[in-house]
């Protein structure tokens, strides 16, 4: 009897432990939603962050450059922030910094050329050496965007919060009259080695000259892609870093030689392909061309389902588009939605291979606005989005579009800090967005001034993008997410 009791106790302990052990098996470590968002798009740092670094790769730092760059720093924190803007010109020049103070709720503009005159210079093997900009903000909850201007157009978009080892761009082109430039910025104190490969509508290209590109420490090089990938209508780019980490941005300049587009575009790359993307803020109108580029960097072919979402929800049947392995597919959005109302586009893969999706738009006569713009679609959703600037000039038509990809209705508030800063943003608008639908705020109608920092708050995770269209140019960009 005593033996039985002992065996029961000993065996029972082990059996109970085994039962608990089995129950614990298979519980995968949870990845935080905030972490997932931060890994995909630029985000607003937490309030406890002591310093936030933003990397602005593309742009030129001398008057008359092809993409004159201005940094826009917004402070959404609880106190005045101190920022250091460092221009790393590359080559033999030493970096130069400027300290600026950003009042609470305010927006500060710093022209790169005012910090350091850093014209682009020819580098090795047909590459170009130009300035990269690092903005360090001491204190959390800052947002940094940069504006580039050239070819009678301008583009504005968030700088990167993280460097990475892979960057993907879907919407490039090297057709006649298009100059595509990839800016590879290495802000770190050790060199980086980068390989560039391309997925085009004609297949995969890996130019020998663009393998093992050395990006020296604290410098930026620009790759004029048209010199290496000749005359391709769709050119998707993958920058893979063998050693080190970089930030990559891409700009395109459409010159007069181009048959359909004019202006300048700017896009931050995607750190990885995803299986689901959202493109808010497609506004069909006269003189506007909207298309989405779907790049598949995987050797295996895939297929995507493209669904338009208007203000009333799903407005047309999804369109299935095959995308070959290491290839790009271009889809004209005008063919998707016939109502003429603004809409969003939901892109999902139906096969395992993930893709990268980017929007390419251009405006011309008879539209009052002119210019071209690109914007990476959003692979994530968030309850808050911040824009360092709502619109660039009083005469611009600026809208912020919100796409609600969830299955429930959500309310979205548009807030704006007072011009010159303030303690808290004031509400300037509110809209209810039905499930799987989109809505938009017209910043002009709401009286948002160019120097106001704009914040968007939603009850449920949404996707928000800004469109600026005016006589000075056109721009498309996602906001900076607040996970």
């Amino acid at each position, binding site marked *: 009897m005593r*033996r039985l009791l*002992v065996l029961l106790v*000993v065996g029972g302990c*082990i059996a109970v432990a085994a039962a608990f*052990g089995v129950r614990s098996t298979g519980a995968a470590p949870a990845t935080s939603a905030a972490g997932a968002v931060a890994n995909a798009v630029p985000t607003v740092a937490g309030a406890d962050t002591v*310093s936030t*670094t933003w990397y602005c790769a593309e742009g030129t730092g001398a008057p008359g450059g092809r993409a004159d760059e201005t940094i826009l720093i917004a402070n959404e924190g609880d106190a005045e922030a101190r920022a250091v803007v460092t221009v790393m010109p590359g080559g033999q020049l030493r970096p130069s910094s400027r300290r600026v103070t950003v009042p609470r709720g305010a927006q500060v503009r710093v022209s790169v050329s005012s910090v350091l005159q850093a014209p682009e210079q020819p580098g090795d093997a047909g590459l170009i050496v130009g300035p990269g900009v690092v903005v*360090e903000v001491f204190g959390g909850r800052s947002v940094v965007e940069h504006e580039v201007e050239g070819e009678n157009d301008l583009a504005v978009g968030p700088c990167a919060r993280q460097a990475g080892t892979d960057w993907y761009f879907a919407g490039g082109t090297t057709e006649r009259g298009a100059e595509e430039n990839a800016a590879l910025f290495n802000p770190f104190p050790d060199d980086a080695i980068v390989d560039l490969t391309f997925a085009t509508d004609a297949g995969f290209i890996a130019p020998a000259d663009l393998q093992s590109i050395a990006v020296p420490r604290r410098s930026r090089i620009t790759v004029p892609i048209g010199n290496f990938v000749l005359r391709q209508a769709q050119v998707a780019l993958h920058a893979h870093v063998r050693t080190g*980490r970089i930030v990559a941005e891409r700009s395109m300049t459409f010159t007069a030689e181009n048959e359909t587009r004019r202006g300048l575009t700017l896009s931050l790359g995607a750190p990885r392909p995803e299986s689901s993307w959202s493109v808010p803020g497609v506004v069909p109108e006269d003189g506007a061309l909207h298309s989405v580029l779907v790049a598949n960097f995987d050797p295996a072919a895939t297929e995507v389902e493209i669904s338009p979402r208007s203000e009333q929800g799903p407005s047309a049947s999804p369109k299935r588009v095959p995308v070959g392995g290491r290839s790009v597919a271009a889809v004209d959005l005008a063919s998707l939605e016939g109502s003429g109302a603004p809409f969003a586009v939901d892109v999902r893969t139906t096969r395992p291979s993930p893709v990268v999706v980017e929007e390419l738009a251009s405006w011309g006569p008879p539209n009052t606005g002119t210019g071209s713009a690109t914007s990476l679609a959003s692979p994530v959703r968030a309850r808050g989005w911040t824009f360092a600037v709502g619109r660039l000039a009083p005469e611009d038509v600026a809208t912020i579009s919100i796409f609600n990809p969830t299955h429930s209705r959500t309310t979205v508030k548009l807030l704006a800090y007072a011009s010159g800063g303030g303690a808290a943003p004031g509400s300037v608008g509110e809209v209810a967005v039905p499930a799987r639908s989109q809505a938009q705020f017209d910043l002009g109608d709401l009286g948002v001034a160019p120097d106001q920092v704009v914040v968007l708050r939603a009850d449920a995770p949404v996707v928000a993008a800004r469109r600026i269209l005016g006589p000075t140019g056109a721009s498309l960009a996602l906001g900076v997410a607040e996970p």
Partner: protein
Amino acid sequence: MASGESPGTQALRGQGQEGGGAPRTEIPTVAAVVVTRDPGPWLERALHSLGGQDYPSLAVLVVDAASEDDPGERVTGALPDAFVHRVPQSSFAAAANEALYTVRNATFLLICHDDVVFDPGVVRLMLEEAYRSNAGIVGPKIVDADNPEVLLEVGRSIDQFGNPHTGIEPGELDQAQHDAVRDVFYVSDAAMLVRTDLFHELGGFDASRFPGAEDIDLCWRARLAGARVLVAPEARVQQPEAARNRGDGAAADPVAPARNRIRTLLTLSSARTLLWVVPAGVAASFVEAFLLTITLRRGRVRSTLGAWWWNLRHFREIGRGRRRAREGRRIDDRDLRQLRARGTRMRGFVAEHVAPDDRMRSIADASRSAVSAATESTRQPLFALAALLALVWVIGSRHLLTGGVPAVGTFARWPGIVDTLSTYASGWRYTGLGSSTAAPPGLVAMAGLTTALFGAAGLAHTLVVVLAFPVGAYGAYRFTRGITQEFAPSAVAGLAYALNPVPRNAIAAGRLGPLALFALGPFLIAIALRRADPVRGVQQRRRTLTGLLGLGALLAFTTAWYQLAPLLLFAAAAAVMVAAPLVGGFRIGVRMLVASAIAVVIAAVLLVPWSLALLGAGDDPASLGFSFRPHLDLVDVLRFQSGPAGGGWAAWGFVTAGALALIVGRGPRFTWATRAWIMALIGWALVWLPARFAPDVSVPAPEAALSLAALGVALAAGLGVSVFVEDVRGRSLGARQAVAVLAATGFVLGVLGFTADAGDGRWGAPDGDWPAALAFLQTERDSGGFRVLWVGDPSLLPLDPFVTSDGTGYSLTRNGSGDARELWRAPSGRADGLVGDAVELAAGGRTDRLGHLVAPMSVRYIAMPSRAGPGATPQPPPARLPGALASQLDLARLEAPPGLALYENTAWIPTPGTVRPANVDRVPLGSKNPTGAALRADVGRVNAVRGSPSASAPTGQGLVLWSEAFDGDWSATVGGKTLRHVKPFGWANGFDARTRGSVSIDYGGQLRRYGMVALQAVLVLTILVFAWRSSASRRARAPRVRRPNP
């Protein structure tokens, strides 16, 4: 019975009368001096043999040293012509010296014991040889009286430390292989022929050298006087081996022989010889004492160390003896060197401790018994298995033995003795960012072991690691022996414990503390269990007190290596108490618990002031070893697979073997098997429960708690042997036999697992280490003092890491990859926490300026290992850390071997370093937000102060930064003028140097530290003396009583 005249005269007359012919005055007279006291039955045989000598002029004098019964009648009955001379109670030497006064006209004296049987021609042969070789002293060949073909002695020698040596292998047969007349260092006084004039000149034996060295002393002095000492092997005598040490008086005072031998050595050696003999002899004695301590033979420790201590205390008396010896010295020590033996001390030690008998015996005896026992044992399968496994152990440790232990984890390289001791005596602890807390006594233990090995720190380090197997095995053997009183179960338990994967995994991961706990833990539990006996009477109380002091001392020693060692004792006591509802013995558990608590108090006192520092480590449990978050599932825990070792399923073998006693055992075997299993369950639970239910809580290294489980399983496996013998064997075939076969198979499986792990020759430890891979760091010191910040999984980091709230570990080393001086780090101070804050900020993506944050700490390099060392199994670092480090704007990645990400901090500030006067205002002083201050500060270029901080090369004006945690006792002077002391960055030390000159930075708390070291020494000595006296008193009053078999 003759009396009144000298035996020499009597002999001459007697022979003349019997012969009736011409007087034989030319024949030298020999007087045999037989010393006896309470003679045994062998006396008559010895006297008969003297009477049977073929030498005509032999007289016999029997000196009786106050026997209780007068042996006169027995002497007369055996040898009517013998003289009997009774003296008051005296030693052998003093009694033999009676010949100086009672023997006249004898040319030679034959001094002998009363149990020596002479072959018929011995006296003649010895005498002939004495004349032929002009010898002063001649000895015979001595064989075993019970087995005359076995040699006991053909002359003797001594080693460098005065230990006797016969040159005869134990059990060596007499095949005339030593039958050459030759000079020897000395001959035993069992039978020695000595020229009478020489004996007079030397003053006979020095009675103070008895026991143990009277014959050595006499022959040595004869040698120094120019006389030859020979052995004449043709002359053969027999002596009962068992009686050979009867005259040593060992039972009365076991220290005396060793003490007298050393006294002789110190008296008769030349001064030049003593210069190296004394330190070497003391060191060798410490080694022997250490080995005796860990084998729980404390009485022998007393004799080993006490011999030297006594002689050092009586140095004045020895000095007088040396002066006398110097007057009679005619030859140099060098002339005697070839007569002395080498390396017999360790041989003697091994022989003595392999032998099962505890009695003091001569080295030759011990060796002989040991070899005899070994010969006997080799016929037993268990011994053969143990020998085979010992061979596997050597093979499995071969690369560690030949190449040293890789500096992985806490296996940091051991520095030299001076460095280690100076670190211990230093008032400032150079771990982390520095601390004024006491240095750990583990450093003293390291220095002691290194000293014992003549400064071979690497060898000492290797032996500490590799010997954990046999020491642990012996501990488990003793533990089980204390329970079962049987050899075979204890031996099996010892084997099962040593073959458990726990020590292999501890070696693979570089965990010194848990390894020490594995080795010494069984001894601790065994003693605590012994102290759990009920105490009755004064004697037992005295013994208990001594035992508790011993337990406390051993616990202190173990805790010096591993701070959490006391928990093992409490866990073992808890196991007994938990098992009580099932099998009883609650009081045993309670008494164990009480004994453990008392031992902890004693250990804490012995370890003062370090123990006081540990009490203040509550906010930093990582400094106590709570720094691991092992990802172990239940199966891993149950089969002890906390690392690469274990042999997969083979580790289940010992668990299976332990089941037999639980399933089949009866009576006390079942009782103890239950307690063993509860012990194992508690050990497993201590590892598995936190891993399963609190994975975010840092716990001690799993090998520590698994040592308890391993001991429980080993005890159960050992009891299985007893169960097999008592409860299975001889019974009809059934389930019992099936379980027994299963258990035996399990044991074999465990053995196979151990054997499989032996293949790599290093028990899974990496084949290299980061200090070797980063050897270039040693040269970087020229650019200024710096630190290396190691971040990553705490189980992969060197030394004893700090741990942040998210489980990320970090440790700091100085001017390189660190060494053992930085082990047992001081508890985290405010400054150390700043490093953790910086690491957390970087890992959380909340700063990209980690380099700036740690620059004031003089962190020049940041290393993130993803392996314990080159070639080790990779383990992922904390998820966000690699990306976070790669994102830092002020860290430049350097080339490093696979498994290590190495960054150089481009914002590094050297220590000590001088901030230029123009930038002094940029250094934040007394900041309440050190992190923010470091982030915002731009102090420009900081010039390294060259040379030693206590006497630097001339440096310029400015603020001298000293990156140690701020302490008011730090001061700096330039040209004798004390500099203003400030607090840069809110935590460091800064000194305002207004003039150029050599800076001297000193810590003012050094005298305080010396005082604490002295206090600690006094405490240790007090307790040791108390324990010593208590133990000696106990031994003198009562014989030892063995514990009854439970």
